């Protein structure tokens, strides 16, 4: 679980750094690299997903819309045929009557009453019938009103019948105050005169035809005239004879469908058809939201699919980006560490060469000073005249001591520069430590410093350079002694660790090292004790010695609490040689 969390919260994300020193910075800004990797990969994975979903969304939407429109169109077409057939039927019957009956028969009220009765029986909804002569006068009439003798010559419908031979009126209330329409048909005699047979039809049958359509809860069919006035009742719209809100569609000989958005935010799919030979436009309106219900489900499924897809892609992308960036980061960390080691080794080597040169140049004049002052002292000592002059002897001794001090420094510098041969021999770690402590035992006793040695019995005898090991311990123990006041504690412990290595810790209760100094502690010539004889080479020599025998050294310290040096050494000499070859600059 922790590993999984680590995968999504790696060190590099928060600018974790192992860079030692300003020279070796990370090759990349890892959090930025990670962000770019995640963004680019996510984009390249999610964009096609979004595109496909968008495409699918649109195609499906288009398909649903076109299916809805065509279904509406089909319904309109079918209804249009029904309505046309309804009107055509009645028109044909009138046509049949005028052809089947002689004019004289038709103006006979009895005959006309029989015809009306038969019509009512066959078709129903026919309220009256009348015959109008060429002058526009109603010569015969059977019906509920007193219309016989009424002249229609000046009326528009009369003119239209004369012109076109047929007339179908809009729906109107008339005297009856009941919606109906009129169909009139003319019969022309061979001499050019004519008469008109006119009948009124209730619109109930027509309305029935429309209401019988199965259009679903939100769909309804109705008829308007070319001025947009409702000719049949509409469930959801205005009353008959009111003007509908939908604009009257343009004339088209075929069935059409379009989308209409009303001012209240509702959308409708409207299908319409002009019914030929009539002033009627058949309309079917369907609530779009109702129709699109199935589409909404599909849309929801597409969105769910898209969301799940994006989540899976993001988990994958973040996981992989983290894994790869982390690998680069680790490699970079190693690079920095190696660079640091190589630079350190190079620095030590060049400082060594410089030190050797300087030491050599100084050594010769120093030797001369040494001999000259020695001779002066000899002369004083061998001559009675000055032998008892303590001041002169003191002065010469002081020169001598200074030369000896300089000599010690040059010798140390030269030993620092020297590449001693690497000689492996079996080493008993506990023995080596005890020998080193032996040198310093007296000082420890005198200063009341308590030394504890805890070397694990699990550490076998191993091959290493005994001399170098001794010098390492001597340097570090000396360092600890210098850091501690009288009565301190020095603990040296060693335990075996994994990969056939041992871990040695040298811990004191001294004054500690500040964080700032800790960074430079292994640098050559860095010393906080220059005034009391520190050369600043001890720890840097120790550092190279530890590297030469294939180990690593680390330090941690707390001011006024103490310092701990940790050395890890390999038990396998083959590895030491490889490491030496790798790090020793030639």
């Amino acid at each position, binding site marked *: 679980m922790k590993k999984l969390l680590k995968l999504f919260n790696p060190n590099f994300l928060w600018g974790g750094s192992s860079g030692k020193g300003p020279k070796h910075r990370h090759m990349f800004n890892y959090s930025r690299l990670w962000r770019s990797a995640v963004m680019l990969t996510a984009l390249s994975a999610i964009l096609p997903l979004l595109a496909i979903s968008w495409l699918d969304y649109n195609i499906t939407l288009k398909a649903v819309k076109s299916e809805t429109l065509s279904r509406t169109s089909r319904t309109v077409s079918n209804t249009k045929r029904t309505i046309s057939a309804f009107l055509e039927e009645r028109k044909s019957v009138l046509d049949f009557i005028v052809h089947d009956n002689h004019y004289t028969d038709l103006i006979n009220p009895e005959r006309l009453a029989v015809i009306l009765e038969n019509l009512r029986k066959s078709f129903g909804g026919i309220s009256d019938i009348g015959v109008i002569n060429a002058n526009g006068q109603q010569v015969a009439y059977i019906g509920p009103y007193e219309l016989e003798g009424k002249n229609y010559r000046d009326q528009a419908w009369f003119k239209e019948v004369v012109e076109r031979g047929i007339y179908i009126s809009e729906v109107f209330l008339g005297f009856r105050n009941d919606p109906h329409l009129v169909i009139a048909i003319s019969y022309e005699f061979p001499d050019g005169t004519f008469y008109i047979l006119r009948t009124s039809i209730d619109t109930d049958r027509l309305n029935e035809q429309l209401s019988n359509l199965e259009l679903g809860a939100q769909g309804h069919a109705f008829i308007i005239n070319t001025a947009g006035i409702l000719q049949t009742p509409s469930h959801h719209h205005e009353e008959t004879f009111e003007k509908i809100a939908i604009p009257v569609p343009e004339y088209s000989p075929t069935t059409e469908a379009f989308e209409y958005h009303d001012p209240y935010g509702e959308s409708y799919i409207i299908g319409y058809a002009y019914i030929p030979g009539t002033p009627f436009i058949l309309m079917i309106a369907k609530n779009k939201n109702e129709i699109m219900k199935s589409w909404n489900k599909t849309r929801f499924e597409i969105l769910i699919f898209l969301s799940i897809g994006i989540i899976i892609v993001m988990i994958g992308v973040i996981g992989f980006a983290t894994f790869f960036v982390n690998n680069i980061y680790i490699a970079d960390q190693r690079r920095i560490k190696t660079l640091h080691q190589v630079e350190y080794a190079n620095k030590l080597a060049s400082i060594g060469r410089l030190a*050797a040169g300087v*030491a*050599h140049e100084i*050594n*010769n004049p*120093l*030797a*001369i*000073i*040494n*001999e*000259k002052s*020695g*001779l002066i002292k*000899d*002369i004083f000592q*061998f001559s009675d005249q000055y032998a008892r002059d303590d001041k002169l002897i003191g002065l010469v001794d002081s020169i001598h001591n200074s*030369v*000896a001090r*300089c*000599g010690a420094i*040059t*010798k140390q*510098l*030269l*030993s620092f*520069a*020297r*590449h*001693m041969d690497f000689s492996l021999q079996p080493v008993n770690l506990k023995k080596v430590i005890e020998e080193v402590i032996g040198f310093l035992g007296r000082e420890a006793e005198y200063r009341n410093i308590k030394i504890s040695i805890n070397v694990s019995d699990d550490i076998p005898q191993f091959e290493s350079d005994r001399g170098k090991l001794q010098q390492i311990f001597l340097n570090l123990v000396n360092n600890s002694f210098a850091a501690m006041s009288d009565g301190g504690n020095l603990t040296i412990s060693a335990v075996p660790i994994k990969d056939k290595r041992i871990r040695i810790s040298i811990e004191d209760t001294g004054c500690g090292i500040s964080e700032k100094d800790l960074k430079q502690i292994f640098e050559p010539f860095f010393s906080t004790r220059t005034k009391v004889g520190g050369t600043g080479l001890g720890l840097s020599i120790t550092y190279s010695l530890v590297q030469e025998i294939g180990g690593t050294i680390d330090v941690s310290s707390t001011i006024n609490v103490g310092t701990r040096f940790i050395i890890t050494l390999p038990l396998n000499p083959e590895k030491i040689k490889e490491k030496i070859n790798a790090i020793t600059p030639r």
Partner: protein
Amino acid sequence: MRLLLVDDEKEFVETLAERLSLRGFDADWATSAKNAEKFIDSRHYDLVLLDVKMPKVGGRELKKIIEKKLPGIKTIYLTGHGSEEDYHAGSAEAEYYLMKPININELIAKINDALGKEAQS
């Protein structure tokens, strides 16, 4: 006891010779191999002190020349270098190897040790 000191630093070798003379040694000094050979040819010496690094002919080369003329002569090397080469020169006979600046008492002890005698000063 006769000693020959050879070092290209005249000031050094001259002073050291004088100091050894004060301690009862019969010490001659030379600043080059050529000069040293003249001394060897003219007198007998019990021990030579040689600087390892000298122009033209170095200490170890000179030792070979002297060895031919005075077989079995004891040698103490002096050096101002800490170089690997010098160290190897010394490691063969570590006790007869001294680094400059030298401690006179240490040198006397080494001379006596080499000659197998008690200190004379």
